């Protein structure tokens, strides 16, 4: 009855003591698609996939992986999935080949079949030439690739990746994203969690945005962007005299009351104090140093709003020193739905 979907989640809850980590999550993942769970740290993504991987028992609800219940058919579920955890879950004193051999056996592979799959996976992850050295001597990127390779050994129907690109260099990240898309082209269903909006946007067929344990939006990238409609996103830098937080606070309050401004957020931005450099900054009001703080606004029409923003800034003794107008994206969707930035 659930065989039409690779993953079907129904009203899943998980509570740790008093904290509800996952609340009423339901979603469907079709076979052969890449499905991303997008959300900030602590949104409940890892808890959700831990339940799907049978690592955590749900407090309520159920889910089906390849038609098997995570409550009642755990071994069948585990045989269907390959899990790539966020941490490097390998034995560093063993070689790449020894690691793959051990994990292959844990997936039930033996003999010639195991040797064949190890060779294939070593080729896929590009470690055939380094298969005999201890993993401890590998670079971070190589470890990440091996970490993924382990989950491919038994050719799982569903590949679950939990933030596989955290803390790695851009080249390795590119490599991983390309690999995930390649696995998908070969027919593997992929469940991918990330807090990088660009990654979800690039590789996903469907995206569920999670926040505080709930799915707050769900659809294709285009469908999600439609939520914010025609709104523009403006990232700007505000310069104020040092230590005068009240000027910034008053300005944000003023902007929130403007007709075409929908959201003003300071989240994800830092205030940086620098020496006054430009002639504009070298005024009696700004003295020798300047506080630069970033703000993100969702506005109806940026061309009409911008003059108002400049005018009101000058009126309170602040200056806008940079403006970046962007098309609506998932970051804007998250900001629109939660009032906070995704990168928080």
């Amino acid at each position, binding site marked *: 009855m659930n065989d039409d979907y690779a993953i079907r989640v129904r009203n899943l809850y998980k509570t740790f003591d008093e904290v509800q980590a996952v609340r009423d999550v339901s979603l469907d993942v079709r076979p052969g698609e890449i499905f991303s769970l997008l959300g900030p740290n602590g949104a409940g993504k890892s808890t959700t996939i831990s339940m799907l991987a049978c690592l955590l028992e749900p407090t309520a609800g159920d889910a089906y992986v390849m038609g098997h219940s995570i409550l009642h058919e755990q071994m069948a579920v585990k045989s269907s999935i390959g899990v790539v955890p966020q941490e490097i879950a390998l034995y560093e004193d063993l070689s790449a080949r020894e690691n793959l051999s051990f*994990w292959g056996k*844990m997936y039930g592979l033996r003999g010639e079949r195991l040797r064949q799959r190890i060779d294939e996976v070593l080729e896929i992850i590009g470690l055939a030439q380094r298969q005999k050295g201890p993993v401890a001597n590998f670079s971070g990127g190589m470890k990440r690739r091996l970490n993924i390779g382990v989950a491919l050994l038994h050719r799982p129907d569903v590949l679950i990746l939990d933030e596989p690109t955290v803390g790695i260099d851009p080249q390795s990240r590119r490599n991983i994203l390309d690999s995930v898309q390649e696995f998908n082209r070969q027919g593997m269903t992929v469940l991918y969690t990330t807090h990088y909006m660009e990654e979800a946007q690039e590789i996903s067929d469907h995206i569920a945005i999670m926040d505080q344990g709930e799915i707050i939006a769900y659809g294709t990238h285009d469908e999600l962007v439609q939520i914010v409609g025609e709104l523009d996103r403006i990232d700007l830098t505000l310069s104020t005299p040092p230590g005068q937080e009240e000027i910034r606070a008053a300005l944000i309050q003023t902007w929130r009351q403007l007709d075409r401004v929908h959201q003003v957020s300071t989240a994800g931005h830092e205030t940086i104090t620098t020496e006054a450099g430009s002639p504009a900054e070298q005024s009696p009001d700004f003295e020798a140093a300047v506080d630069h703080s970033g703000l993100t606004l969702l506005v109806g029409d940026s061309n009409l709003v911008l003059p108002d923003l400049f005018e009101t800034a000058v009126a309170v003794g602040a200056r806008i020193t940079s403006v970046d107008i962007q098309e609506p994206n998932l970051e804007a969707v998250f900001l629109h739905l939660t009032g906070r930035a995704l990168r928080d």
Partner: protein
Amino acid sequence: MRATSLALKDLLQIARDWKSALFLVVMPILFTFFFGLVLQPDSQAEADARLPVGIVGREAGGQLGAHLERLLAASEVIRPVPLSEAEADEAEALVDGGELAAAIAVPEGFSQAVLSGQSPRFTVIADPMTTTGQAASQGIETVISRLLGAVQTARISADEFAAAQGFETEGARQAYLMRGLDQAVAAWEEPPLTVRQEQAVVSGEPGESEVPGGFAQSSPGMIVQFAIFGLITSAMILVLERQAGALKRILTTPTSRAAVIGGHVLAMFLVVFAQVLLLVLVGQLLFGVDYMRAPLATLLMATILAFWAASLGLFIGSISKSQEQVITLSLIAMFLFAALGGAWFPLEVAGEAFATVGHIMPTAWAMDGFQNIVVRGLGLASVLLPAGILLAYGLVFFGLAVWQFGFETR
């Protein structure tokens, strides 16, 4: 099958760590040698292992004093220790303190009393509640009986001679009596027929003390101690596996929790079992400790000790959050179990109370089992109780380890 794969992986990791060989094999051999030398019995005790019995008032001038001393010296059970007058007052204290197994006070005029057919009263100081005190008392009783028997024999002989031929003078009768007494006492020294009850001992020396010393103490002691210490590597693997997230990852594969625990405990068991067998071999060949006189009993003890130690290792690995905790807990376990369990020195030498408390420790039972084999020369039946109790301890630790394993699934 998956449990076996997991155990083989653990063994591969242990084999990669060459330092573990130091703890598993080299250090126990060095410590066995060192402790063996320290615990070596002194040469006098080794030459004469009979129970020391203090002699108060030897009546050196009496007619039977010399005969009594000869019979005491000839005893296979007790060794006479002449006490000075000053020491005579402290005889009871010397017995209480264990320096003497017993003491005997020879009454004034005992020779005359015995020769005239009376039964003089000997005072024996001994603790009848201890096997040592009982054995010493019996030894004294035997010597006195032999002396009285010798006197009786000489008197009968003299009476028979008087009836047949008669003595010319009382002096001739006395001389005949004393010659007969000499011969009777000499006969006890070289009896034509001897029935001797021996307790089988490894060294084969009858009457040797059952308190283990030398390598017979240090070899099993270090086997037991380093079975615990050697677990550091195995427990460390468990902690690192959990820290790296590999344990969680294993649980995302079709591997049961029982297989995970079984695999780890199997690896630990195999490591300790191999270690114990190797050290038994070294003890046998290098230090002359005769484990092979009861090979099945030794094998049983090695197996159960390995299971107990593996369960302890699993428990330590389960409750430790870091590598430092593994080392700390292993050291605490080692010192506690080894020292109080009699692995460093025989519990017998520390007194009855200490020995009783010590037997709360599973290691004391492990030591009992091994020493029943190598010190007391007993067989398979003698290790069944120690092995059973050690097994029970192992099951308790195993249960605790499973309970604390930290799968964190709820």
